[in-house]
């Protein structure tokens, strides 16, 4: 009945999964970076347009990589923290809060602030996003039990609706800025500069590191709050840390790129289909493949329509929406 030590060793050897996914993904990312630098209306990489590539295309590629990685890993982390496969990084109101913050800046008039040291647009968007999630958390903590995340999610719905309502009211009274706000909401990487990259890198780096450090905890949480607690995990604390880290990075990403939808759902689910659902593999892979995904989806927008760029949010939604339906169908089959 008792197994022999040799049998145990063989299991220990079989169980670690193939680890070639990560190196392979990094190779694909490198390929995407090269493509991102090569493709554009001004043509390929030549010594004549090197300056253009370095000052226009490369910051755009770098920002796409950072934002794509952040939105993807935040989406995967939210899905783990709330045990809801359709959770996205905007779940707790960060998008609506950022949108409201940005709208206020547009209405106040951007031209007046051109001489400021700090660009108020990303700042207002960042503060708006964090404030919305903070309010969501206060409501969730006041009315929900510490171990249930449902109240928190519902509070997020309420805060999102409220922020959107205020934003709509402001836009209704100031319809001269609707076009600007709308283009911000659709997301953009076209105006990226190295300054934007420097601005968000610290937040995104810290956020990614904290989330990566919690990937084993997210695996424990897969069995639910009660069982995770019975296994010695402090569920409410882990969820708070994960949500704060993911939100901070998401708010930073949104503040420079606008609202780019579906990345936080498409990438984690695609990675799950390929490499399994364990967060220990999922989180590093979503960072690499999220960066790759956004670099690649940013390319068609540059060349599809001459003169006017297709907003990146339109491209990701174009690929994301059908994918979302596939995920739902798969989930239904699994049940």
């Amino acid at each position: 009945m008792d197994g022999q030590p040799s049998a145990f060793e063989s299991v220990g050897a079989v169980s670690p999964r193939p680890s070639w996914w990560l190196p392979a993904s990094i190779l694909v990312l490198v390929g995407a970076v090269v493509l991102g630098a090569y493709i554009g209306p001004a043509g390929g990489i030549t010594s004549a347009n090197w300056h253009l590539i370095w000052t226009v295309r490369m910051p755009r590629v770098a920002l796409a990589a950072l934002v794509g990685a952040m939105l993807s890993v935040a989406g995967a982390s939210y899905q783990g923290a709330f045990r809801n496969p359709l959770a996205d990084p905007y779940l707790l109101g960060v998008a609506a809060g950022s949108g409201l913050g940005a709208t206020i800046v547009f209405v106040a008039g951007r031209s007046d602030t051109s001489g400021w040291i700090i660009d108020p647009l990303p700042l207002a968007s960042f503060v708006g996003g964090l404030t919305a999630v903070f309010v969501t958390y206060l409501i969730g903590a006041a009315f929900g039990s510490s171990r249930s995340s449902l109240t928190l999610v519902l509070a997020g719905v309420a805060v999102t609706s409220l922020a959107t309502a205020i934003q709509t009211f402001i836009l209704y009274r100031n319809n001269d800025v609707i076009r600007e706000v709308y283009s911000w909401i659709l997301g953009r990487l076209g105006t990226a500069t190295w300054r934007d990259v420097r601005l968000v890198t610290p937040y995104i780096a810290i956020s990614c590191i904290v989330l990566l450090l919690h990937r084993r905890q997210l695996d424990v949480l897969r069995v639910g709050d009660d069982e995770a607690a019975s296994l010695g995990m402090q569920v409410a604390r882990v969820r708070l840390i994960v949500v704060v880290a993911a939100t901070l990075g998401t708010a930073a990403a949104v503040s420079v790129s606008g609202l780019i939808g579906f990345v936080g759902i498409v990438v984690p689910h695609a990675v799950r289909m390929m490499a399994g659902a364990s967060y220990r593999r999922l989180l590093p892979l979503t960072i690499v493949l999220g960066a790759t995904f956004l670099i690649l989806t940013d390319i068609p927008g540059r060349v599809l329509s001459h003169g006017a760029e297709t907003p990146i949010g339109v491209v990701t939604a174009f690929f994301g929406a059908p994918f979302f339906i596939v995920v739902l169908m798969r989930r239904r089959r699994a049940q």
Partner: protein
Amino acid sequence: MSSLVLSRLSVRYGKRTVVHEFSATVKPGDWLCLIGPNGAGKSSILRAITGLASHSGDVSVDGSPLKLRSPRRRAELVAYVPQSPSLPAEMSAFDYVLLGRNPYISYFGTETAHDRSMVANVLGRLDMLDFADRSLGSLSGGEQQRLVIARALAQEAPILLLDEPTSSLDIGHQQQALELVDRLRHEHGLTVISAMHDLTLAGLYADRLALLHEGHMVMSGTAAQVLRAETLAEFYGVSVSVHHEPDGTVVVVPRRTNS
């Protein structure tokens, strides 16, 4: 081997008290089974011991109160098998049992070779080494139930709490699961507290039964003492006949009332 003492344990959900001052002492290696109709407070007692339900009164293991321990240290002493465990369909059996090692792995840490060999050892003891790489979704109900018990064993806790461990199993798998727990408690000196609906099985495996009704313990003792037709009629509101087999087994059989 550890003893468990519950003294004046009360559990409230909002304003409703669901367990009133429940006291019991379970000696090392003993099996106490909580019985009683739905809503009697069986699950709440198990959840309070695990630390999932807030409660008043004391739960002590080997004389030291559990509430003074961190959740992690508590999980080293008490393993809990819930009534309907969540089994992530895509998780491998090995990874699932590995979750039982969580109390021993540091916050930012990862499992050691010892944790992995411990999991392999548990799977081996339950004849489940072949399942290690299978996903939970591909296993039968009986296999899943054995894995949940395997996870609790990997926790290496001296006290095992089982909430309706056989409710979703057919009669064959019910017997297998309970035989397994019984064997393990004899091999490892596990102290077991379970909540069960099947009174015959409860009497067959547990050393002692505690009958609960509306949060109060109304009777405790051996199967022969507690499983009496008039007692069950009073607290379950059922008509049963109770048979005593020559080997001491007490069999509870429901009777038709409108024949």
